[in-house]
């Protein structure tokens, strides 16, 4: 019996092309390794060339994180089941790996690990040479010169990761890899071929890319709010205390912020009276908090230190269009 299980496990490994290079024990261990290289995700750390077992992926409508580029990979010992209700159910032993970088300059790599008792996450900060990254449980403040100017970059600590990556039961969870977020080009088919997704469907749902100017303004704005706010501002999630819900599914005007007075905003209100004043972007608390860099005012609270000017332009145009 045990032999059969073992055999099945081996076959599964073969089927998914999971590589012996990846340190499965490190993914499942209660204590994380001190160095990113110990996971064996990359054949060459300096060039970030991933082993064949990792499936690279992108998402359609990404979160703004101080203009950082993001490279993402899925490592899964078996495929997730196609479903469109929630995040894909990558099996125990899976890892989601995301490196934040500005061009060739690597900053940090966050790993989400699916362990026996649920998901967990750890941040690794790269050395100046870009050859190794070190575990930083408590996060780190960095000052980085980028093409967008100097950025006071904050590597989030474990709990700050959890501030967004948490479900209604307070369990850690991935956010991005939902079918609708992965549905771009031939990506779903490619993930199936790679063995990290069991199947796909021709009519798979898609989250619009808010950067796609050919889409309707309302669609783009709601996609932007979903990607940048909806992981906290949704029923049952960390920012539901104020009753402002910005997730894609919300359709009640007051909960979307339309003419909704603030609840616990304090000076985050900026002296304004409602979250969204239709037709009046500058009278809207939502925009006021997007154009702030003050930690006591700005939204999102973590994940950015500079203003997402493209996002601000989009939301400004959207609020102006409302009546």
């Amino acid at each position, binding site marked *: 019996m045990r032999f059969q299980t073992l055999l099945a496990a081996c076959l599964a490994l073969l089927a998914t092309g999971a590589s012996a290079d990846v340190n499965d024990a490190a993914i499942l261990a209660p204590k994380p390794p001190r160095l990113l290289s110990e996971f064996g995700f990359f054949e060459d750390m300096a060039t970030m060339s991933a082993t064949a077992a990792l499936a690279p992926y992108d998402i359609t409508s990404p979160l703004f994180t101080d203009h950082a580029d993001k490279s993402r990979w899925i490592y899964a010992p078996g495929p997730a089941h196609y479903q469109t209700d929630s995040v894909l159910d990558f099996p125990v032993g899976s890892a989601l790996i995301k490196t934040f970088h500005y061009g060739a300059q690597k900053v940090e790599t966050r790993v989400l690990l699916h362990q026996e008792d649920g998901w967990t996450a750890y941040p690794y900060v790269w050395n100046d040479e870009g050859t190794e990254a070190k575990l930083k449980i408590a996060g780190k403040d960095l000052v980085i010169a980028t093409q967008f100017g100097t950025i006071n970059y904050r590597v989030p600590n474990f709990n700050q990761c959890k501030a967004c990556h948490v479900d209604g039961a307070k369990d850690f969870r991935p956010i991005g890899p939902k079918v609708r977020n992965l549905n771009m080009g031939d990506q779903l088919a490619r993930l199936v071929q790679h063995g990290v997704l069991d199947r796909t469907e021709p009519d798979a749902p898609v989250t619009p890319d808010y950067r796609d100017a050919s889409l309707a303004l309302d669609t783009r704005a709601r996609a932007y709010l979903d990607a940048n706010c909806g992981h906290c501002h949704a029923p049952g999630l960390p920012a539901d205390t104020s009753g402002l819900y910005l997730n894609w599914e919300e359709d009640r005007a007051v909960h979307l912020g339309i003419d909704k007075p603030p609840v*616990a905003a304090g*000076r985050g209100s900026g002296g304004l009276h409602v979250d969204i004043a239709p037709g009046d972007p500058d009278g809207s608390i939502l925009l006021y908090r997007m154009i702030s860099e003050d930690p006591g005012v700005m939204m999102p609270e973590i994940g950015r230190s500079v203003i997402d000017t493209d996002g601000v332009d989009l939301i400004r145009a959207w609020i102006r269009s409302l009546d």
Partner: protein
Amino acid sequence: MNRMILWGFALMALPAQAAIIDISPGPDAEEMLQEALILAEPGDEIVLAAGTYQIRNQLSLAVDDVTLRGAGMDTSILSFKGQTGGSEGLIVTGDGAILKDFAVEDTKGDGIKSKGVDGIAMIRVRAEWTGGPDPENGAYGLYPVQSKNVLIDGAVAIAASDAGIYVGQSENIIVRNSRGEFNVAGLEIENSNYADVHDNHLENNTGGILIFDLPDLPQKNGHNVRVFDNVSINNNTGNFAPEGNIVAIVPAGTGMLIMATADVEVFGNRFENNDTVNVIFGSFVEETDDDDYITHPRRVHIHDNTFGPSGTNPDDSEFGNVIREIVGVPVPNIVYDGVMTLTQYLTFGMKRDERHSIHSNDHGGQEPYANADFMGYFGLTWLHGVTNDPTEHKGDLQPLPPARVVIRGKDVSKTEL
């Protein structure tokens, strides 16, 4: 033999040896403290040595049953003057957290927040903005929200731009022996159930004690709040809340405000020298389309309180001026807005099982009561008339049961934690 077996079980039930993690001030203190808060195991204690800690990023605790304690609220100080990241000072999302004997100062946003936890104790902690009242201060000092089994004991909150001590959308709550000064609201219980607020001292706030309910929130229609043996005096600090926040409407000089909540028992308190009014209760003041939300208060029971001179100089603000104009100066000790449905207003008044009761108060020689009749004043002007008889409220109200708070399995309602 039996004893041996019992011993065996007792040992098995014990968790792994709880650790004590000592933190001292210094350049690495923030990282060490945050790392300790992340790596702590249930039962561990993190101890802050005396001194001032400069903290740049919001601290957070997500592990259950962890104690964070210092050497005293005036000696172990977490200063967020240079905060660059995160809004709150400390956010707690782990159950059974015990925080005691330290201070959180000058956070960009709220001081200490707990969200969605079962069991949170804030004992002899202080949250303060050291520059005094300023609309740039954070909103709340001590801020449990969507939590149950909440104990705030011997705490101090100073200069919050909304409420010093604020418990929202929570249940099973005790706030006792605490002090709120120079906040917009000294102490506020909002959208919450089963709360005991007693033996607190509220002074020099805009409003001393606020008990109210707001629409469109995950938890609403709060009920069962007992407010007793508190002192709410000299709450005459000008309202410095940023506009847009509901608390910005509170007139300076308010001893207590009850709005749109049910089953509130107010007894044994002392209210004095609040320049607008000692106690005012009434309906939600804004428009709402929330059909599940009840806008008027039900079963407010005000008895055996002691009132001193107040209401001599109502605040020159929207509501202060309305009170001055309608009921005159000095404003009686207890003011009721008189708002109800139009049918009730024109016929027999409030529903029998929702009626209030006001009795056995020591009014110190002032006018005890006024029904301001806002409905008449703002709408049916030809019917408007102020009345001054508190016995117009015919509620037959019994004492409410005490709140019960259990943290880490221990009932702290009567004992200290």
